[in-house]
């Protein structure tokens, strides 16, 4: 049984805040691992393309954006490594999109568990990290290959990359918590996700660098992913670019707000999930 001493008494009462919620979450960490592992396993078992599938989407996005922004808009005129610049933006975006997608559909996809077994419900959207991170590492390997090709190795800054990965996950989870809890009650929220991701793809600085648009930089930073994408470029491209603190702080402010309110809404509605799912 769970390794930690269980509370001597468990009291079930209306409106009672589960006192041990966070401790329970910790005790159920293995379940979190198993759910993530299941999703990864199933994802790579069911698709014949497997890894190729995880590569295809970022490659195509990179190709199109490099062409549109780098060639047509002329932003990459003096920069032969422009595809790498785009890829450094695709990388966090892909992570964000996969996490948001997984997390926002997670409760409904696991409704048979939610209505039959107790566990802290937060585990379900959290388990979306698994597939997203595996896909991310595949794309990261692709990035490494590209960086080798262009001979543009990242410097010591890459050590900060895990921190920015965590930022992307936090933002995606915040939005995902909102959406998955709302989807339990209102099924049409699932249609919002593809739409949001489509809009986000164009509003985020994936095909262009924000430093070429100094007047717009602060406005763009209201999109929390802007800060993360900028930070990824700062980490990976090794250019002497200054870290744009104001933009990053704005983005993370928005992101944290999203996360905290998402968590609050999720926890508030969590108790009735089994009744309405």
């Amino acid at each position, binding site marked *: *049984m*769970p*390794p930690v001493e*269980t509370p*001597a*008494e*468990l*009291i*079930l*009462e*209306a*409106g*009672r805040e589960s006192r041990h919620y966070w401790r329970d979450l910790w005790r159920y960490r*293995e*379940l979190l*691992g*198993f759910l993530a592992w*299941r999703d990864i*396993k*199933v994802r790579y*078992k*069911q698709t014949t393309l497997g890894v190729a599938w995880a590569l295809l989407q970022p490659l195509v996005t990179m190709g199109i954006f490099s062409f549109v922004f780098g060639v047509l808009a002329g932003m990459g005129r003096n920069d032969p490594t422009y595809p790498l610049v785009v890829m450094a933006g695709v990388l966090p975006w892909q992570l964000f999109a996969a996490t948001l997608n997984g997390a926002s559909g997670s409760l409904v996809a696991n409704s*048979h*568990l*939610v*209505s*039959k*077994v*107790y*566990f802290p419900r937060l585990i379900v959207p959290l388990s979306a990290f698994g597939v997203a991170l595996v896909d991310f590492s595949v794309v990261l390997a692709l990035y490494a290959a590209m960086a080798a090709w262009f001979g543009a190795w990242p410097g010591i800054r890459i050590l900060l990359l895990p921190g920015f990965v965590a930022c992307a996950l936090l933002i995606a989870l915040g939005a995902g918590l909102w959406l998955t809890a*709302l989807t339990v009650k*209102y*099924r*049409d*929220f699932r249609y919002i996700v593809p739409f949001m991701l489509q809009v986000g793809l164009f509003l985020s600085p994936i095909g262009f660098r924000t430093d070429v648009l100094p007047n717009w930089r602060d406005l763009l930073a209201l999109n929390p992913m802007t800060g993360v994408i900028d930070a990824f470029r700062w980490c990976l491209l090794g250019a002497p670019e200054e870290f744009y603190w104001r933009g990053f702080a704005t983005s993370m402010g928005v992101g944290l707000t999203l996360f905290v309110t998402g968590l609050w809404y999720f926890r508030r509605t969590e*108790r*009735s999930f*089994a*009744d*309405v799912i």
Partner: protein
Amino acid sequence: MSSVPAISVEQLGKRYLLGHQARPDTLRDSLAEGARGLLRRWLRGAAREEREEFWALRDVSFDVARGEVVGIIGRNGAGKSTLLKVLSRITEPTSGRAVIRGRVASLLEVGTGFHPELSGRENIFLNGAILGMTRAEIAGKFDEIVAFAEIERFLDTPVKHYSSGMYVRLAFAVAAHLEPEILIVDEVLAVGDAAFQKKCLGKMDAVARHEGRTILFVSHNEAAVAAMCGRVALLESGRLVAFGGVADVLQRYRSSWQEALALRIATPWLAWAGLLNRSELEARRGGEDMEFRFRLRGGTRSLADVEIDCALVNERGEMVVHSRSRHLAQTHRIPANAAVDVVYRVRQPNLAPGNYSLTVYVRDREQELLWVDDIPACRVLPTSALFPEVPYLGDARGATLPAFTLRLESAPEAAAS
């Protein structure tokens, strides 16, 4: 040892709100509904939003001592599953409270979380984790689980290729190796083949006796309840109506069938006056003819061209027999202010063991006259004149248990082409 109960339930209640229409499923519906509500309020003053309440559980209180095995019985919709869901922390009570002292595991379904694409081995770990076991624990019991399920050869086959029997056996095997202090089990034992069911019950029983595990156990299977439980709780319409010794409560459960009659359609022209030979029908064996005699009392006018439907319904609410006088090309007359006895005889209905209720529906050419549901009708014992060799037939799960033969013939070899 200690006198503190493992489970204390105090005036537990669970309310569901039933929308007047179906619950709005989309945000758009919900907004539209809200707007309509506002409009209605403006037009008609502050009419309160009408939502129907439904108490699935109401004021339920009982204690379960440590190491005790308690059965929960009741008819469909009596609140058994809701009670288990509340005690398993899946849903929150609306009122009252429950205190649980000890580690709980609940088994409301067999094979929760099994994934068809994953192999048996992988599903053992996944399902174990879902039921609350740690990886180390599952690994420690892995061989035992596999042996119990008898699926060694198919361990690495995706479970989507399993036969339903193998699937259920594997799922049971994982569940049977749970080791909580308190185990909450829904009617999961209704599936699976009889021999394996017995094996699981035996395992649960042994653990309860030797390791002092507390078990709360919902079942329709009176025999299983009688064999395993020390005390039984009887729920009716969300309320606890009896809690005590097995024999008493099971008796009460059976007799509760007698009070259950439901008048669906009542008119002044025809009244239900009771099933007359109830006592004869109390303990029947399968394979016999059955005769139901019931009385109808006519009203102030005589009725002609009367059609009568009779149906037998089992405990799962399935209509097993439906007989219509129209099929006999008959109509009947019922004189005014007089009683008639209807004799409904079924030749060898071959009912499976269990309790049955009778439904009677009467109409004439113009209108419906009477509809009575849930008339406690008969109890069929788990023996049958058709199968004299076998003393116990409670493991048949069909709605009827007709005579049959089974033989093997040697297949003719396919002709060589």
